[in-house]
C-alpha cells in the first residue's frame, strides 16, 4: 500500500495543489491576485521535484491500484513533460490580462495536468477514459476563458463539440473492446489480443473508433479540423499548453495502446493506418502552414505536421520507434513553448498575432528575435538543435522498420517545413517595421522561462545521452 501511494504522489500532490489554489483564490485580496500564476508555477515545480525525488519507478514495470495504473518509466518521463509544460505555461500567463488574476484558470490548469499524468499512467480502460476527460474538460473551459472575446468563446465551443463527439466515439470503441475481451484492464486486454482468439476485423473496427478519440487529442489528420480554429481563438498560453502538454498526453496513450495492447504482430493493418495518418498529417499540415498569415494558425498547422512526424515513430512499432516518440515529444515541448513564449511576449506589447507585424523585431529586441530564430530552426530540424536529433530518430525508426517511403516523405516534408519557418524569420530579420526604435519590455519571469526552454532545446540537440537513455527506458517500460 505504501509503495502504491508513493507511486501516485504526483497525482495526490496535484490534487492537493488544485484544492489549495481554490482556497487561496477565495482568501486572496484582489490587489494581490497577480501572485496567482507565480504561486501555481512554484507549486507545479514543487510537484516536479517531488516526482523526481520520490516517484521514480523501479527497473521492472508494476501494475498498481488493482491494475488501474502502471508504475513505469514511460509514465514517469511523461509526468515530467506535463509538469514542466504546465509550469512554463503558468509563467507565460503572467501579464495576460483576462487570465492572470483568475484563480479558476490555474485550478483548471492543474486539474488538466492531473488528468494528463493519469493518461500517461493509465493501465485500465476506465482509468484511461476518466483521465482523458479530466485532461480535456478543463481545457475546453480554458480555451473559452475570455468570455467577452468572441474568438475565445468560439474556440472553446468548437473544441468542446469536437472533443465531446470524438470522446463518445472513443467510448463506444471501448465498449466494443470490453465486449470482445471481457476485461477493462489494458494488459489483460493485450493478453487476450495476443492470444489471437478475438476476431481481427472486429478488433480493427473497435480500434478505429478508439483512434478517433486519440487522434483528436494529438490533432492528426483526419481528426485535426478543430486545431487551427481552437489554437487561434484560445488565449495564447492555453494554445501553448494545448500544443505541447496535451499533445504529449495524447501520444503517451497512443504509444501504450498501439504498441503494448495491439502489437503489430497481431494486427499488421495498424502500421498501415498509422503510416497513412502520419504522411497525411505531415503533408497537409506543412502545405496548409505555407499560406498562413497569423502566427498562431501557422504554429497550429505546424503542430499538425509535427504530430505526423511523431506518428512515424508509432508506425515503426518498435522499441526505437517508441523511444523516438518520447524524445521527439520532449524536444517539441521545449521548442514549441519557446516559440509560443515569444508570440505571447510580443502580443502583450504589440497586440497582434499577424506575421507581418513581426517586421523589425530583430532591431527592436535582438534577444527575442534570436529566441524565435532558435525555436523555429529547431522546429524545422536544423542541427545542432534538439529538433534535428529528434527528426533523425523518428526517420531512423521508420527506416529500421522498413518504411523507407515514409522516411522519404518525412524528409521532403522537413524541407517544406523549413521554407515557411524561414519565411517568418525573413519578416523578423530582414523586413523593416514602423516601431523599431520603441522599447519592447520583457518581464523577468517570461525571460527566465524562455531562457530555460532555449537551453533545453540546445541541450537536447547536443548532450543527447540522458534524455535518450530515459526515452529508451520509457519505451522498454511500455511492454
Amino acid at each position, binding site marked *: 500500500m505504501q509503495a502504491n501511494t508513493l507511486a501516485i504522489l504526483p497525482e495526490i500532490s496535484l490534487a492537493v495543489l488544485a484544492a489549495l489554489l481554490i482556497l487561496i483564490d477565495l482568501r486572496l485580496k484582489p490587489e494581490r491576485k497577480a501572485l496567482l500564476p507565480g504561486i501555481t508555477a512554484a507549486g507545479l515545480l514543487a510537484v516536479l521535484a517531488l516526482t523526481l525525488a520520490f516517484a521514480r519507478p523501479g527497473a521492472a514495470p508494476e501494475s498498481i491500484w488493482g491494475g488501474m495504473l502502471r508504475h513505469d518509466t514511460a509514465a514517469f518521463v511523461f509526468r515530467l513533460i506535463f509538469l514542466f509544460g504546465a509550469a512554463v505555461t503558468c509563467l507565460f500567463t503572467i501579464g495576460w490580462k483576462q487570465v492572470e488574476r483568475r484563480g479558476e484558470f490555474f485550478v483548471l490548469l492543474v486539474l488538466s495536468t492531473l488528468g494528463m499524468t493519469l493518461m500517461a499512467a493509465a493501465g485500465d*480502460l*476506465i482509468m484511461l*477514459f*476518466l483521465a482523458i*476527460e479530466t485532461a480535456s*474538460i478543463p481545457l*475546453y*473551459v480554458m480555451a*473559452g476563458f475570455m*468570455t*467577452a*472575446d*468572441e*474568438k475565445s*468563446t*468560439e*474556440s*472553446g*465551443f*468548437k473544441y*468542446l*463539440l469536437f472533443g*465531446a*463527439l470524438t*470522446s*463518445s*466515439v472513443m*467510448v*463506444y470503441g*471501448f*465498449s*466494443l473492446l*470490453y*465486449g470482445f475481451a*471481457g*476485461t*477493462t484492464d489494458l494488459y489483460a486486454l493485450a493478453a487476450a489480443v495476443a492470444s489471437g482468439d478475438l476476431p481481427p476485423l472486429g478488433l480493427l473496427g473497435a480500434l478505429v473508433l478508439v483512434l478517433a478519440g486519440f487522434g483528436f487529442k494529438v490533432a492528426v489528420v483526419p481528426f485535426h479540423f478543430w486545431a*487551427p*480554429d481552437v489554437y*487561434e*481563438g484560445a488565449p495564447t498560453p492555453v494554445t501553448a499548453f494545448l500544443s505541447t502538454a496535451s499533445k504529449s498526453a495524447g501520444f503517451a496513450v497512443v504509444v501504450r495502446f498501439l504498441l503494448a495492447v495491439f502489437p503489430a504482430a497481431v494486427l499488421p493493418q495498424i502500421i498501415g493506418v498509422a503510416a497513412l495518418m502520419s504522411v497525411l498529417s505531415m503533408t497537409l499540415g506543412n502545405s496548409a502552414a505555407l499560406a*498562413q*498569415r*497569423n502566427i498562431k*494558425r501557422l504554429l497550429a498547422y505546424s503542430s499538425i505536421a509535427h504530430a505526423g512526424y511523431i506518428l512515424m515513430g508509432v508506425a515503426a512499432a518498435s522499441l526505437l520507434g517508441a523511444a523516438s516518440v518520447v524524445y521527439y515529444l520532449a524536444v517539441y515541448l521545449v521548442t514549441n513553448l519557446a516559440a509560443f513564449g515569444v508570440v505571447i511576449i510580443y502580443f502583450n506589447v504589440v497586440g497582434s498575432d499577424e506575421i507581418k507585424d513581426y517586421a523589425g523585431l530583430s532591431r527592436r529586441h535582438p534577444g527575442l528575435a534570436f529566441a524565435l530564430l532558435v525555436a523555429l530552426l529547431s522546429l524545422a530540424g536544423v542541427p545542432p538543435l534538439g529538433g534535428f536529433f529528434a527528426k533523425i530518430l523518428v526517420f531512423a525508426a521508420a527506416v529500421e522498420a522498413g518504411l523507407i517511403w515514409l522516411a522519404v516523405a518525412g524528409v521532403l516534408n522537413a524541407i517544406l517545413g523549413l521554407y515557411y519557418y524561414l519565411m517568418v524569420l525573413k519578416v523578423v530579420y530582414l523586413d523593416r517595421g514602423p516601431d523599431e526604435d520603441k522599447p519592447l519590455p520583457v518581464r523577468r519571469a517570461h525571460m527566465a522561462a524562455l531562457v530555460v526552454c532555449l537551453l533545453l532545446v540546445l541541450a537536447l540537440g547536443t548532450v543527447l545521452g540522458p534524455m535518450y537513455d530515459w526515452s529508451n527506458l520509457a519505451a522498454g517500460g511500455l511492454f
Partner: protein
Amino acid sequence: MVPVQYFVGLSAILFTLGALGVLTRRNAIIIFMSIELMLNSANLLFVAFARAFEALSGQIFVFFVMTVAAAEVAVGLALIVAVFRTKDTINIDEVSSLRG
C-alpha cells in the same frame, strides 16, 4: 434472457441515430443531445456485456461515463451561453469567425 446480440444491435442503432443527429442538425443544443445519445448507446453496450460476462467492471464504467457526461454537459451549456452572449446565435453554421 435476451441474447447480447440484440443489445449490440440496439446500441448500434442508437449510436447511428446520434451520429446522424450530430451531422445533420445545426443547433448546438440538439447536437449536444445527439452526443449524449451516442454516449448512452455505449453505456447500454457496457451494461449488456457486463451482464453477459457476469462481471462488474462494465457497470462501473457506466457510472463514470454518466458522471463525465454530466460534467461535459455542464461545461458545454456554460460555453453555449457564453457563445450566445457574444454572437446571439447557437447555430453552428453562424459561429464561424475563425477562418483561414
